[in-house]
């Protein structure tokens, strides 16, 4: 039996596959919490952008539970955890020349964050 049929291929291209997991896990943070992105430099894959590491932000909302890319990329398990949209002020990221009212929202996993 073929692993990938034309019909399955069509669906994969059109809909993709979700990394969301339907697991009830306690969230480390809630909307409004002040957080600091961990200053980590893993040798493998990570989805935490360099420019937010060590920067302070505010949890805007909780997206739910998702596969953790760092361990999943190493085939070391999905390690599902909460992902939040975290708001960073442009000046926190880019310095005093950035516009005062600009903000950036970045999706970050529990393991990328500490309480600020």
């Amino acid at each position, binding site marked *: 039996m073929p*692993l*990938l049929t034309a019909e*399955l*291929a069509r669906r*994969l*291209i059109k809909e993709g*596959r979700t*990394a969301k997991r339907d697991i009830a896990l306690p969230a480390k943070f809630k909307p409004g919490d002040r957080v600091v992105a961990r200053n980590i430099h893993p040798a*493998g*894959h990570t989805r935490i*952008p*360099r*420019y937010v590491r060590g920067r302070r932000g505010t949890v805007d909302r909780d997206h739910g539970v998702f*596969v953790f*890319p*760092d361990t*999943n*990329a*190493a*085939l070391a398990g999905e390690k599902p955890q909460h992902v939040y949209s975290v708001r960073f002020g442009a000046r926190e990221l880019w310095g005093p020349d950035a516009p005062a009212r600009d903000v950036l929202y970045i999706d970050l996993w529990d393991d990328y964050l500490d309480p600020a």
Partner: protein
Amino acid sequence: MGGMDGFGPIEREADEPVFHEAWEGRVLALTRACGAWGKWNIDKSRFGIEQMPPEDYLRRSYYEKWLWRLEKLLVEADMIAGDEIERRVAELKQGAP
């Protein structure tokens, strides 16, 4: 790329085709078909592209990166031998069918 600048403006192409060359579609199809074996996942394949030497990463086109990545994943998953592609390329250059 995130946090980097100096790459100049994005060039917009009128009526941009899905693929600029026929081989690009084959690379997409090969990547999907090989991925269906479940030997890797999207995060491992993202890491694959990240491991491309930076001087190549900045120079190569989108699907050239995909092809480089696919060859790497196939070797890592023991689905092909490390020198298998080079050997086949050499054969084809000598006119093998």
